[in-house]
């Protein structure tokens, strides 16, 4: 495609030829011919040949705030030079360049390679894709330009940040519930022997007791004692109202950080963690433990977006049947715009669950982006306090989480209710 310069040169050339003809002036005509010849000669060579692009990332998964190292290798596979080639690696706008540059102007010889190395900071959690790679081949004199994409994507998941949680606090309130793994006299997944039973199709071969098979002539498998883990249920509010505040500081972001941190803490103690995210719909991850569950939890949290308006009671109504008896439930919600919260909490407490409500203060988040008159702020704050007091009165532990407060510091408040 011609550039503006080429168009002007060509138009100018033709105009000069015509004017030169009109006034019988050779200089104008020859100048015009030279301009047109310049365009013609330069149009012979266009494009950039066969270019191969490879991208390497330092990690596929990162935590929010971490740095991602990217290396782009561009190789000229053709037998000719690429001419002036601009390479631009498209990065998600949420990511910030920390070092280096995601573009380069190059002119590769046949078989030559060039490396573009840059570092990205990932300040926001989510599922991202780096790419495609944009190529813009220019003529040396900028007369022709061709733009194209190399459809090469690299997917990356940015997990929410994990904050340290004070173990002491969590123990102090419910010493028996959070004691970590102990064996139960029930069959299940664990490490200690429980009993022998007959083999049924689908049982892993590694569980077959070969000595018993030799003795009895029938396939027998070892059954293990279930490790007593605490099933922790996290109910995360991702309704549209959770987006109040700035991109980096809003109730949803803080909720994700706290969910991830709680999950990390409990999974490290070999407890099982379940996650229910409600907003537009309900997404439920059943309780489990281990690295795989941890990865699933973080991946689910990475993809949370604020939308919808599902009430909490709808969530508890549909899930309470699946909750293990007496297991602790964490409700992480700003409790704004949902009148069903007290009823839902009462219901859960009534079923014998240890309910903790971690509530990011949405009014204070709103203050970060818009000016709220002092009187209005005071009134709204009072309303919020009343709401939280009602929840506390229902038997839940309630934590009022301010924007500038650390998670472990916020969890300390639970003593106050």
């Amino acid at each position: 495609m011609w550039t503006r310069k080429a168009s002007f040169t060509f138009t100018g050339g033709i105009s000069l030829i015509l004017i030169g003809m009109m006034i019988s002036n050779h200089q104008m005509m020859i100048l015009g011919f030279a301009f047109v010849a310049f365009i013609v000669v330069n149009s012979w060579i266009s494009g950039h040949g066969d270019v191969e692009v490879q991208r390497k990332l330092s990690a596929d998964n990162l935590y929010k705030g971490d740095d991602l190292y990217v290396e782009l290798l561009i190789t000229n596979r053709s037998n000719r030079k690429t001419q002036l080639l601009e390479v631009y690696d498209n990065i998600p706008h949420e990511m910030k360049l920390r070092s280096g540059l995601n573009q380069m102007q190059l002119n590769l010889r046949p078989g030559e390679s060039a490396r573009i190395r840059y570092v990205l900071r990932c300040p926001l959690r989510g599922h991202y894709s780096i790419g495609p790679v944009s190529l813009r081949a220019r003529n040396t004199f900028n007369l022709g330009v061709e733009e194209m994409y190399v459809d090469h994507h690299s997917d990356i998941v940015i997990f929410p940040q994990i904050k340290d949680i004070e173990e002491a606090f969590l123990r102090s309130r419910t010493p028996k519930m959070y004691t970590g793994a102990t064996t139960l006299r029930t069959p299940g997944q664990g490490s200690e022997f429980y009993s022998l039973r007959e083999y049924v199709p689908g049982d892993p071969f590694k569980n077959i007791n070969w000595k018993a098979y030799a003795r009895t002539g029938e396939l027998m498998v070892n059954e293990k004692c279930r490790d007593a883990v605490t099933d922790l249920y996290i109910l995360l509010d991702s309704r549209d109202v959770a987006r109040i505040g700035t991109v980096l500081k809003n109730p949803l972001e803080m909720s994700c950080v706290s969910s991830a941190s709680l999950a990390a803490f409990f999974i490290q103690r070999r407890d099982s963690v379940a996650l229910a995210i409600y907003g537009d719909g309900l997404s439920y991850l059943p309780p489990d433990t281990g690295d795989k569950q941890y990865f699933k939890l973080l991946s689910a949290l990475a993809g949370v977006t604020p939308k919808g308006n599902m009430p909490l009671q709808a969530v508890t109504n549909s899930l309470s049947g699946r909750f293990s008896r007496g297991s602790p439930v964490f409700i992480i919600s700003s409790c704004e715009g949902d009148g069903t919260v007290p009823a839902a909490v009462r219901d859960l407490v009534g079923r014998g669950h240890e309910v903790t409500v971690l509530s990011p203060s949405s009014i204070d988040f709103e203050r970060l982006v818009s000016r709220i008159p002092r009187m209005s702020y005071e009134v709204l704050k009072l309303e919020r306090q009343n709401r939280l007091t009602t929840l506390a009165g229902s038997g839940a532990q309630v934590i009022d989480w301010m924007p500038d407060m650390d998670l472990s510091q916020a969890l300390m408040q639970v003593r106050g209710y």
Partner: protein
Amino acid sequence: MASEVGVQSDVTMTGGVGARTLHLKLLRKQWQILALQIVATVALIAMYLEVVSTYVVGSIDHTMLFDSIELIIGDQLPLGDWLTGEGREGLGRFFVPLVLGLTIGGGMAFLAFQSPQTQQRIKLGFIITMIVMLVGRLIISWLTGMLFSFDLRLPSDSELQTLQWPLLMIMSLVILFIYLLPVIMGTRGIWGLSRRSIAWAIGFTLIFLGIHAILTFPLIKGQLGSYGAQFATLESQVSNPTIGLFGFKLVTQEQFNLIAIAILIMVFQESSYGVIRYLEYAYRLPESCKRDPEYVRQMDNLLNGHLRHTIGFLGLTAIATMVALGFHSVLLELVSNTTGSQWAGQVSESIELTLTYGLVISALMFLSLMAVMRFFIPWQRVWGLIQSRLPSNETAQDTGKEFAQIDI
């Protein structure tokens, strides 16, 4: 998939002594940049001399204007003849002013790289010098005259006479400046990296050519009377070509000079703008990239490519223009040689062909043919084949990490 990713290389950690970076201070001394700037300067000088020798010398040059002014005022102008070129013949009249123009342009470029404070001081000093030169003598003689005679009065005629010299001096300088404008602005643009100045230089040249073309149009020239007769005109009818390629006589000396002007304008434009474009790119790179050997290597490739293209493609453009202008004679010669008929000879002598439109049609036909040829001849492959046959001076490919750690 995640894998080992090396951090950005850094010449300060790998290159050792004399490691090159893309900092402007170093880049401005790089041979390719200097070569492009020198090419642009040579093209500017050659273009100016070519334009001047074709259109100005002996018809409307500055020495003739100075002579006329001296005749009117009945005195010599303050600028010495050695400086203005008066008394010399032909293009020699422009040699000293050309050097003066290059010096002024270079000085302006040098000034552009000084700190704003220094620039302000120099500009202020220049303005004060001009004011003092203009009215200094008048004020001193007038004030001292009033002081010694204890009289408050207007300046006398003899005191006002002191204004004549500075006014004539300034006028002479302004005239010389106008004549040298393309050279001054061009030099400032090339070495001071100013796009605007380059545009001024090219624009002024083109405007001059345009105005000259209009004034030499027979109808207007006739209206100008004896003044119009001064203008150097180019014949509308083409004489027999004397310059050519491969045995074909393509263009006349006159046409060749005009092609040279056009090509030199383009060489000047592309080289000077190219330098600015690459330096701008380097300037915008972040610090880490300026020290990255990959970026340095690619900058070398870009500059080498630009140099090659400037010579190669603009040379081809010149040849293509020459062939286009002489295409009708080539065709006729081919027909004459192959058929041996007299038809070619009759056509070549026809008035339609020697007049401009015959030439234009054949030239445009040739250029169209060349443009269409790109669809039939795989120039890319041909070019690649040539490049692959050329001796390669490939630099060693970067393998693996070049250093252990860098503070980011």
